């Protein structure tokens, strides 16, 4: 197992380097310039844009050959210098260090809520197949899957913030992270982000649980007189968890990579999704490369953790 993990970690480094190089080259080959966004203001001042674009590119060394820029960037990265964000004027590492927590708390809470409720409802729905509760759960899970995040978020704001005044319309970064006020500020964003995930987990859990409920080992356990709760939790759910864990981990990877972006946009949360999206539009190369690299690393590591988790969930799986 150890050898397998080391091998996978080496692959991870190799893939991360590939992602870094491709992202860097693609960004530099783009016909746009970080100075493009200033056009409106410059025209307002009657300034010759060509000169300004040239001066801004010269300031950040973007007028040098691409290979020079690449080797300088990789060299700095190796020394722990992730560069200077062109669009936010701060070190990239400091920028990501300040903003990751906003994404993390949102993703963590949304995942906890979605996993907990999704599995709970899914199992209940399967055990009570074709009951009224199952139909209701099925109906709402389809609705949850169909609702787009941006629509749900705006509706929640209009109802609970604008009409009822229960919550602020936007997330306030002045609130201490570990406070009730912060928890309150996260209620609507977490609901928005977790609804679709929860609905999906409900469906997957129901389906996987039903599959296992029909298996011989369940019949055998029941015939032995094992209590029903133990049959469900220890035998059925444990076996059903294998595909569910895969899906949860896959979701987690994609959310970290920007899936929470829409929720961040709607609720004004300055998380990594929003930072990276704005960086793409601002042609902020150092931030885009860093976020892509970190995102790729997270996805690769989550995949590795998933594979390792399999061996605990299903002892028959062996990588050696």
């Amino acid at each position, binding site marked *: 197992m150890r050898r397998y993990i080391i091998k996978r970690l080496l692959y991870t480094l190799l893939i991360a380097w590939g992602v870094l190089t491709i992202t860097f080259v693609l960004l530099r080959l783009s*016909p*746009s310039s970080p*100075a*493009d*966004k*200033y*056009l*409106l*203001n*410059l*025209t*307002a*001042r*009657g*300034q*010759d*844009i*060509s*000169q*300004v674009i040239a*001066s*801004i590119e*010269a*300031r950040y060394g973007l007028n040098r050959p691409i290979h020079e820029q690449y080797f300088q960037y990789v060299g700095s990265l190796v020394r722990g210098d992730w560069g*200077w964000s062109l*669009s*936010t*004027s701060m*070190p990239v590492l400091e920028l990501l260090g*300040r*903003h990751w927590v906003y994404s993390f708390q949102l993703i963590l809470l949304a995942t906890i*809520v979605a996993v907990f409720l999704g599995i*709970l409802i899914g199992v*209940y729905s399967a055990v009570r197949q074709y009951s009224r509760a199952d139909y209701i759960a099925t109906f709402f899970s389809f609705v949850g899957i169909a609702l787009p995040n941006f629509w749900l978020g*705006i509706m929640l*704001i*209009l109802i609970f*913030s*604008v009409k009822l*005044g*229960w*919550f*602020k*319309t*936007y997330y306030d*970064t*002045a*609130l201490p992270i570990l406070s*009730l*006020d912060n*928890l309150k500020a996260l209620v609507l964003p977490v609901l928005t982000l977790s609804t679709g995930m929860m609905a999906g987990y409900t469906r997957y859990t129901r389906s996987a649980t039903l599959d296992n409920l029909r298996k011989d080992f369940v019949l055998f356990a029941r015939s032995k007189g094992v209590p029903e*709760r133990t049959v469900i939790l220890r035998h059925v759910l444990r076996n059903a968890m294998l595909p569910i864990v895969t899906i949860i981990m896959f979701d987690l990877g994609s959310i970290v990579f920007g899936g929470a972006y829409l929720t*961040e*946009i*709607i*609720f*004004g949360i*300055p998380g990594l999704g*929003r*930072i990276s999206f704005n960086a793409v539009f601002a042609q902020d190369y150092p931030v885009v490369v860093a976020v892509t690299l970190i995102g790729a690393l997270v996805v690769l590591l989550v995949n590795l953790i998933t594979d390792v988790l399999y061996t605990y969930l299903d002892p028959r799986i062996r990588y050696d």
Partner: protein
Amino acid sequence: MKKQLTALGLALALGFILFGAACAPQRQARDQYISGTSAGDAETLNWILAADSASLSYAGQTLDSLATYNNKFEVQLRHLAKPVEVSPDGLVYTITIRDDLHWSDGVRVTAEDYVYTLKSLMFSDWLNFPYKGDWQEQVGGQPVFVKPEVVNATTFRIVRQTVDPEFFDNALIGLTPYPKHIAQKYEGNVKAFTEAEEFNKLTYTGNLGPYKFKDWVRNDKYVVARNPEFFLGKEDGAPFFTERIIKIFGTPAATMAALEAGDITAAGIDPAQVAKFKSKANLEVYTTPDTGYLLLAYNMRDNGWEGFRDPRVRQAFSVTVSKKQVVEQILLGFGEPAFSFLPKPSPWYTEEGVDKYGVEPLYSKDKARETLIAAGYGARGADGSFRLSDKGGKPLKLVLATNVGNKTREDTAALIQQELSDLGVEVELKLVPWPTLLNNYLKNKVPSAAGEAQFNSGPRAVSQERWDMIIIGFSSNPIAPSGQEVFLTSSGGLNFWGYNSAAVDALFKRVKSAEAVSPENRKKLYAELSRVIAQDQPVNFLAFQYGNTGIQKRVKGIEPGINMGYNFHRWFYE
């Protein structure tokens, strides 16, 4: 049953958490002034490196400039102790600053700081100040910098070799100093200067502005706190608001929801939302003139339709598009027809002798048809019906481009397409991303020439993509509009449509000469420019837009107008 009870218990627990969270005390922002925007965040607080308006606006809250304008364009002194003195020949500007300005470390602000900022930072080669062109003049066909020199601790001079009647309005009025004793540490090292903590956190601003920097969470909010030492405090009192916050929202809808809920103090309002917000008891909506205008550019370059090189054809197209419809249907009444680059509040604005294309009687499709026939683009059939064609007799098909995502421009494009279809022009709309519009449509170069494409690479240059008309928005400085020469003179750096008029070139030259120092003469020259350009129609100036701002009614001290925020430090809560 047990399981059901467990599930119920968990659901209740979750509900309890949500309810508890909902009942948590809400923060009151009584003395904060929170402006909401979805226009995006600033780039830097190190303002000399900035080229975006948000950066300059952020820094400007902690650093006043030499002076500003009120809504009537009267100069309001800020760092200036008295109005700038200009020598009779218009070449020497003597600037006297207040003697009570100081940096955060207590060091006095002197004329030396201003001259250092100009000579060693703004004019330097190593820093690449984006607006250095504002401080250059053409001498012998070459751009040279003006010459700043220290007179004494509070006075410095700027000596020019040529007269520019709008030098004060275009450049001098906005001058803000860097502290020489701090900036010298980074001189010559652009990386160190760019990353200097003092400049990126505005720790040096002393009593130079109404607020002091407090926090900046990127893509979220910019916070400044009341500066009790503010230099105008003696006369006006320190600002009322304890904090001024700019809150960045991801979408206009989120901004509007926050304004409606009372979570923010003020925000710009889309025209379609104005009526709704006017009905809110807690909000006042201020509609003020704006300097932004919408225009339809005609491509007179070699890859555009050759008809647009004939002013009669341009007139015929301009006479076809109703500006009333643009204002009423697209801007929903929040704008007014434009006939030149001068907005109505400008002291140089005139309508005398200016052809008003696009409003009756110069909104007439019959007139357009007659003009096009006279220009050789069409004929009447035996039954009197009009048939438009190009010189080869083929039906006319033109490309109209604009940037996707800008609803005003997209709607205007559809309106123009409809209007021109009445003439028999088939208009193909191309809605492209902004960078594509810039790089493939606006930038141009001579096909065989080496080098990068520019926005005006000479009369023979063409863009990568073929286009005939482009809808775009520009902005004009109402008090010093001569900067519009970059669009309208033959050598103007942004004359991407290839307009060439000796008369317009000469008039812009005169408006930037000694002849225009007298306001009466300048007014005459701008009037003449307006008339010539309106007659020639190099572009169809469609409309000047109005801005709508919703502000909570309890905010007092507001003077609505084109420069509404000029006295922000005097605004207060009732």
